[in-house]
């Protein structure tokens, strides 16, 4: 894919390195030349100095053939404008903007932009860790459902997945063992030391933990 990243701070540079290492064509735009030092010397994409919503610079960055565009500077407004320019003026198929302010994030999400708010994400990640260290709700971007990690001990070992599931409340969706991670069938038998990943209703988390005899973590 041809991807344009605006903002070469910690997030932008990390993202650029990640995507570039996976073989994507990456162009990074930042206002300061010195920011590109974060990319290290293994980054083989393009770097451009300037304003991430300047039409001329974006054309120079090849936005007309870009498959994806993300704006991850530390300025909410810059990101919101850049993302809208990419989407409305250049019709880039996939556009993502980072927004710190939760309220602005919600407003612009409602207006149809694809927004990632580190603030909301991070707060909910920390909330999850406080409530239950093996639980995360941010994975499915929902405040109602989360993913719980369960290590199989004696009381569950030997049971079939179908017998562990509780319809509408708790559903095993992946099984991790030495051989790798698989999607289990209802009849799959779980073994001691298997790690189950299950989707759980947040409001049922305590009941599920009690039922499966999971210690607080």
């Amino acid at each position, binding site marked *: 894919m041809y991807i344009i990243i605006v903002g070469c701070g910690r997030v932008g540079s990390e993202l650029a390195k990640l995507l570039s290492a996976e073989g994507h064509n990456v162009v990074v735009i930042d206002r300061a030349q010195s920011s590109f030092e974060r990319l290290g010397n293994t980054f083989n994409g393009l770097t451009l100095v300037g304003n991430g919503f300047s*039409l001329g610079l974006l054309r120079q960055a090849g936005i007309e053939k870009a498959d994806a565009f993300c704006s991850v500077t530390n300025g909410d*407004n810059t990101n919101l404008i850049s993302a809208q320019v990419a989407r409305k*003026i250049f019709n880039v198929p996939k556009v993502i903007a980072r927004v710190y302010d939760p309220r602005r994030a919600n407003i612009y999400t409602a207006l149809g932009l694809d927004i990632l708010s580190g603030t909301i994400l991070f707060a909910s990640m920390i909330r999850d860790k406080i409530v239950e260290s093996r639980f995360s709700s941010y994975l499915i971007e929902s405040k109602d459902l989360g993913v719980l990690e369960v290590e199989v001990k004696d009381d569950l070992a030997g049971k079939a997945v179908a017998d562990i599931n509780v319809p509408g409340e708790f559903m095993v969706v992946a099984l991790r063992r030495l051989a790798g991670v698989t999607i289990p069938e209802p009849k799959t038998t779980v073994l001691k030391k298997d790690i189950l990943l299950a989707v759980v209703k947040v409001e049922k988390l305590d009941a599920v933990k009690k039922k499966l005899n999971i210690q607080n973590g």
Partner: protein
Amino acid sequence: MYIIIVGAGKVGYYLAKRLVTGRHTVSIIEKDKALCEEIAKDIEAMVINGDGCDPDILEEAGIRRADVIAAVTGDDEDNLIVCQLCKELFKVGRTVGRVNNPDNERTFSELGVDVPVDATMIIGKIIEGEVSFSDFVNLMSFKRGRLAIVRIDLPAGSPVINKQIKDIRLPDDSVLVSIVRHDDVIVPKGDTVFMPGDDIIAITGVGNESQLLAIFYGKI
């Protein structure tokens, strides 16, 4: 009318002052606290210290009953976001946004700012008109660039000299607004006769410039 101004720099300050004199109700939102205090002493308007991009601050300023929002900070991103929030979230009827960098003018229009005001471009064009020998100057574009106010400085050799307005055929969507002759402003009528040195102000649809040039200069 109730008008909210975001940004109390030079532009915001003079705008507020003029509007208050014109008996409009004005509120000003400004990030800088010291500037707020200074302005509150000077202008009869509600002054709110805060970020105009924050919907809570806009609500505090009474955005829901505002007729117009004018975002005139020195930051194009801020001006754009203020206008968008007011339009999309608070359904303000008219949003005016100051364009600091002329490169962003199109972005303002495309992202829904009703009236982008590009002062740099306007001043630039006026100065260009004053210093250059170009007699045809585009003073200002509006309606998303579809209409323009132009100034035509009539040279002595113009084919319309000594002709009456009714005898020349203007392009369909062009109107002569005024003629400045020496110190007089003449409102053009059918029998007004063109003289050398007339400064003609016209409104025209964009794309008609070459036709106007042909009519007033006899060349393209």
